[in-house]
């Protein structure tokens, strides 16, 4: 590890033909990963990408790393086993809104609660793509899909808020086509010890095209995205002239800067702020609010794998390294001559 690894994007592209629909947001995320991975200083053989089932879950086949395309919703459990089996590995989960929030809902919350040191990229396109267009647990009420011809009556999850509810130690958001931002979020996620949860808004141009128009379109997104930077005031807008402050009753409100209102009056982003603050950010979304992206929450807490390694070391120190013969012959034995 002393000599710098000379890896490039090319080193992470597998020989498999990428088979997402032309125009799918997944291409941009794949490209971002292939650019970020060589920059992390990790030998290629130490990456493992684990996925469930869904369009996004084909991801491992296109990365020239170790990869495991598992079963629907269960990637967090397999990733946990891989990390506990070999804590030296850099483990990445690729999942979708259906995979991790519907069939795999139980696993994702427990992964976050335990704080296993893995990185989760949740591609949120608010639709089931691989099964050809049913509403998902993040689809908005009223959405007309193949399985909801009269509109969905199903209240959606907010993935970032759900992650916060599970006491996640790292929660971030980005957008498929906002590649400089996405790459930065992926690097921050890698740098966090514990479960790093990334909600990545991703357009399905076949079954849910335009779902994120206001935050993906270059002409619109500057007015609708709120870029979170630790310590900076919550300012947004094409001209950076709007901000968010707390009203008298601790309700957030949007204010125009100028006319007596300065940045000093605004909330300043604190990644370690109380969970209520993080939840407030997670709940904001257009059209009324801007969409906060970047690192919403980052706190330090012991990771499950570190705690496991430590406990094994402690018990080994106190009891001595296990000896098989002693284990067999230790308890109340007797001899028959």
């Amino acid at each position, binding site marked *: 590890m002393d000599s710098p690894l000379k890896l490039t994007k090319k080193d992470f592209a597998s020989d498999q033909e990428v088979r997402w629909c032309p125009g799918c947001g997944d291409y941009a995320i794949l490209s971002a990963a292939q650019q970020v991975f060589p920059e992390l200083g990790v030998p290629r053989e130490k990456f493992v990408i684990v996925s469930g089932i869904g369009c996004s879950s084909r991801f491992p086949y296109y990365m020239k790393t*170790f990869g495991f395309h598992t079963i629907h919703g269960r990637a967090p459990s397999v990733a946990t*086993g*891989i990390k506990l089996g070999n804590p*030296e590995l850099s483990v990445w989960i690729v999942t979708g809104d259906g995979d991790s929030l519907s069939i795999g809902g139980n696993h994702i919350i427990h992964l976050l609660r335990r704080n296993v040191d893995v990185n989760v990229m949740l591609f949120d396109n608010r639709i089931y793509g691989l099964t050809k267009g049913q509403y998902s647990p993040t689809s908005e009420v009223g959405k007309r899909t193949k399985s909801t011809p009269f509109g969905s009556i199903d209240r959606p999850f907010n993935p970032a808020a759900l992650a916060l509810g599970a006491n996640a130690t790292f929660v971030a958001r980005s957008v498929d086509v906002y590649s400089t931002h996405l790459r930065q979020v992926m690097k921050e996620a890698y740098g966090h010890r514990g479960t790093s949860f990334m909600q990545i808004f991703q357009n399905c141009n076949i079954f849910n095209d335009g779902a994120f128009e206001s935050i993906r379109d270059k002409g619109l997104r500057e007015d609708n995205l709120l870029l979170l930077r630790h310590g900076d005031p919550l300012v947004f807008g094409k001209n950076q002239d709007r901000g968010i402050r707390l009203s008298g009753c601790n309700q957030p409100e949007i204010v125009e800067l100028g006319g007596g209102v300065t940045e000093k009056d605004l909330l300043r982003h604190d990644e370690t702020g109380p969970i209520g603050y993080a939840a407030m950010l997670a709940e904001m979304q257009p059209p009324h609010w801007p969409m906060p992206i970047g690192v919403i929450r980052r706190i330090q807490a012991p990771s499950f794998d570190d705690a496991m390694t430590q406990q094994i070391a402690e018990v080994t120190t106190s009891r001595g390294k296990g000896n098989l013969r002693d*284990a067999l012959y230790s308890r109340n*034995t*007797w001899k028959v001559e």
Partner: protein
Amino acid sequence: MATEASSKKRKRKAKRLDRAVIRFAGDSGDGMQLTGMQFTAATAAAGNDLATLPDFPAEIRAPAGTLAGVSGFQIQFASDAVFTPGDRPDVLVAMNPAALRANIPELNPSGIVIVNADAFKDGDLRKAGYKASPLDDGSLDGYQLFKVELTRLTRAALKDLDLPTQAIDRCKNFFALGMMYHLYQRPIDVTLVWIDRKFAGKEQLIQANRLALKAGYAYCEATEQFASFYEVPAARLEPGTYRNVSGHQALALGFVAAADRSNLKLFQGSYPITPASDLLHELSVFKNFGVVTFQAEDEIAAIGAAVGASFSGALAITSTSGPGMSLKSEFISLAIMVELPLVIVDVQRAGPSTGMPTKTEQADLLQAMYGRFAEAPCIVISASTPADSFDAAYEACRLTLKHMTPVILLSDGFIANGAEPWKLPEVDNLPDISVPYHRETESFLPYSRDPQTLARPWAIPGTPGLEHRVGGLEKSEGSGDVSYDPINHERMVHLRAEKVARVADDIPLAEPIGDRSGDLLVIGWGSTYGAITSAVRRARADGKNVSQLHLRHLNPLPRNLGEVMERFKQILVPEINLGQLSLMLKARFVRPLIAYNKVQGSPFASEEILNKIDEILEAR
């Protein structure tokens, strides 16, 4: 201690017995399992062969004093070989009327009944459904009834201790245990040592339990109630070092041994479920062996983590019971598809659905064989006795590592919770089961195959140059790339089947115990071993032409099984299910056989099988 005590006071007669069957029964809160386990430990120390049957309700504390709350523990011990916990107890220790009522029907005619006379007040009787006290109404005539005021005597023995009455009353099971130690001349020091360790730092409780135990012993010695006491001389076991072991302990040690001898990290993913949880408890202690136990959020995550750990290079196991097996089936399919080593332990219980979680059954065999969608063959083996569970676990690991495909290991509530003496193996004699990881990068193909076993290479993350992807989609032979090619799919389906079929080259041939050929062959698997062995021995001693074959390997079956079956005129297959092995054998070998089935949540009594053998042979 025992000899010293017996030489004192009036000389009562010692009766010499070859074997004895004792059952302790009481309320769930009376500590009957603990009492039984202590009696077992003392009996093991006395050098007897033994077998035990714990039998308890699913409710942790059912309403006190009711039939639903009765917990029992039976042990058979002898001065020769013991194969079962015994058909009928010779002695019943009943701590309350409900325990008496639930267990008296199974007691030997003229057997001994010891009751806690203090627990037969009107209210107690009502709760057990007695209209009049069975102690006075003559219904126990024919048995040797001993009314002992266990509560009063325990209180008297512990009167000088500064403990609340409730705590003192909890010691009455040790008073009863002490009595039984005298009655059967067991050494009490094993339990004294246990008390000191269990209650370390709680001097009052140490004193209380020691006093209760010794008081019970002394009472039995001094009272004139008992005309005699019993001696069951030590068994003539094969020379070696022995310990008493439960099926769960033996399984755990088997896995630890397999990991040690294969130089792999042992990983267990599990979710609490009766009666399999004890395997998680047992293995979680072995931290200083580097064993990782992971209590997952559910059954699916438990096996998922095991599959992940296997991918990363660990010796991975997951353990569960029937309902969990159903939940795990999709992941077992994945393990078959990605061809990774994995042991799935199914400690079977009575079903379907929640069924009778604390009661035993053998009804998951067909699920293990066929309980997955599509063509998903799996190696299936079984454990036959508590001690045999060590060998079964070791064998499961050997097969899964060598053949790179999952192994289902079937145990059940009876053998997992039961216990027996175990002749300890010499560690150096355990076979080497290590399998090197693949390291060679030159022309590496993740789905290339060993020409003999058809196993694919185990190439683990972290190995430079071997980066590859696995997954549930169909694999192209060799490269492992995703493939929808119809011919490739058919070839891969055949390869996965052939891989499991070839395990038959790696297991011993079937070898009947008894004769090479004859009138009747009794074929069994799993926990029926003891009852069948005992029945066949008795039948042979009677001059009957009957032999026995017990199967460890259920898929694939031994190569010569059909040929062995041909050599016998009739085949009897006893199972605690509706005929699952029978069905497999009939389908495979297309020959008639006699299925003998019982599904009452309890093991066969050897007498039941003996009667069946007699019936078949007499009908000829």
